[in-house]
């Protein structure tokens, strides 16, 4: 499997791609924070935020619909927010008798539900844009500059580096299981559920030991190459005037969104 199978980075060159990763991290977090603060039902502010997203989409040469097309990822979680529709606050809109339970959707509940949904949908799009325009090692380096503990960023860097290696290892295990689980079409193959979990558990154990022993070899190889407990990067990460300008401008836009949301 190629590394790109997971990586959400897009090899384009654009204004947003060239920005300092720190700026992108700070603006993304500020944008998500701003969405969280906006009051329920401030549709004009949500629309302004979405407009901002479209501008970033356009500036990063990914196409206007790029982040929208990938935002389906929050769909499974909508299920837990659906219960908000039946909030007892507000005026009832209808009454659905399902036999074992009577559901009463209210206007307050509907506004709450769609606000949660919109906030989540806007926030996830910004995060999608962040990783689509920033290489992951640069992202980790930005977090290091933003004073995240060194141990943590190094662990994350290793996780990223070996994610693909170990995923390949897992795929090999899965392929081996497939190959050993021959069966006739239409007939049951393999053992009972307990047997199947036992096989999967042994695979997890096997994967664990292979990873554990691999980390030993990796550490020795790193020591041999002069590892001092610190990962380096060739990217200088210097803030230019354009970076500062974008930061200030973006924060102003976010303040404006807040203004639109709170002043009616």
């Amino acid at each position, binding site marked *: 499997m190629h590394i790109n199978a997971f990586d959400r980075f897009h090899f384009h060159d654009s204004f947003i791609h060239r920005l300092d990763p720190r700026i992108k991290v700070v603006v993304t977090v500020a944008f998500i924070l701003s969405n969280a603060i906006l009051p329920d039902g401030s549709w004009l502010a949500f629309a302004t935020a979405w407009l901002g997203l479209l501008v970033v989409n356009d500036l990063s040469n990914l196409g206007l619909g790029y982040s929208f097309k990938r935002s389906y990822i929050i769909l499974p979680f909508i299920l837990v927010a659906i219960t908000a529709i039946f909030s007892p606050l507000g005026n009832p809109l209808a009454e659905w008798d399902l036999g074992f339970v009577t559901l009463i959707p209210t206007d307050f509940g509907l506004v709450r539900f769609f606000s949660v949904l919109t906030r989540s949908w806007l926030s996830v799009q910004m995060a999608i844009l962040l990783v689509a325009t920033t290489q992951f090692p640069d992202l980790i380096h930005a977090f290091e500059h933003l004073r995240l503990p060194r*141990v943590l960023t190094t662990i994350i860097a290793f996780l990223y580096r070996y994610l693909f290696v170990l995923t390949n290892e897992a795929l090999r295990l899965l392929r081996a299981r497939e190959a050993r689980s021959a069966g006739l079409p239409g007939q049951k193959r393999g053992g009972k559920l307990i047997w199947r979990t036992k096989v*999967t558990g*042994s695979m997890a154990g096997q994967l664990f030991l292979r990873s554990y022993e691999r980390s030993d070899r990796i550490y020795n190889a790193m020591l041999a190459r002069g590892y001092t407990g610190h990962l380096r990067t060739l990217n200088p990460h210097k803030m230019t005037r354009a970076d500062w300008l974008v930061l200030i401008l973006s924060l102003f836009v976010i303040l404006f969104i807040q203004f639109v949301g709170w002043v009616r």
Partner: protein
Amino acid sequence: MLLAPAPLHIPDGFLNLVVSLIFWAATVIMVGLATSKTNQTLGEKQVPLMGIMAAFIFAAQMLNFPVAGGTSGHFLGGALAAIVLGPWAGILVMTAVVAVQALLFQDGGLLVMGANIFNMGIITAVIGFGLYRTVIGRNKNIRLIVAGMSAWLATMAAALLTSLQLWLSSTSRLALVVPAMLGVHALIGIGEALITVAALAFIQETRPDLLDKEATASSGGRGWIVAGILVSLLAVLISPLASGNPDGLERVADDLGFLETGSSKPFEILPDYTFPVLGDTAISTIIAGVVGTFILVGLLILIGRNLRKNRKQ
């Protein structure tokens, strides 16, 4: 492929600011402690090890097994990581996993990442390791059984905490979300427990040195036993209260002033609102019963152990 919808990864927007920040604060404290502890006790060699273990958790989540009707069991790994690597290292590993899931795959949000790490990394480590720590001197079967139970309980506690956070943010209604989450995760937790047990059994056979008494005892002190049992008890006490009698819990939270902190007015459960299929009896009572039994067994083992120790002296 890696993006199996895990209902525990809360996206941004589902928790309000106050709840997000409270759990970020708790997570920062715990991760900070874990960082300094691992810096003290482990050499720089442990850093690549933990990174690769985090990648292992990631890859192991791909190993699914068919259960029935097209659904499949998955593996979360928090309890296993805490048992094999020790609780502090387990917390760091799961923090890295949750962070990368959110950053690289948008599986879980950034502002709510504190809550996600707390649910999936810290609670699972406290329960998983804390309960396992009580039986480290025992024979293999008892240890495996307790490890499996602690993995199941850790999954349930994570689900419970997730639903409580959603409720405190007034995103979900308590009477609906708690039984639904606990019901689903009672099944997911069984898969988690079975894989944890099978993986531990395999490691026990091939590398017993990783699981021997001294190795486990040195990775986390006795405080973890207390913390593990306390958190488990708390989960067991809250879950029947939350699913059977949500009004009670809501009143407690109201008295403590929790609900005013939310950005919008909290939900008040209608007095005639009933959800007999999920809310009142069947699932919640069964869950409470199973959890209670398990805690009782754990306490008995603990008491028995201490009694025997006293007799020796």
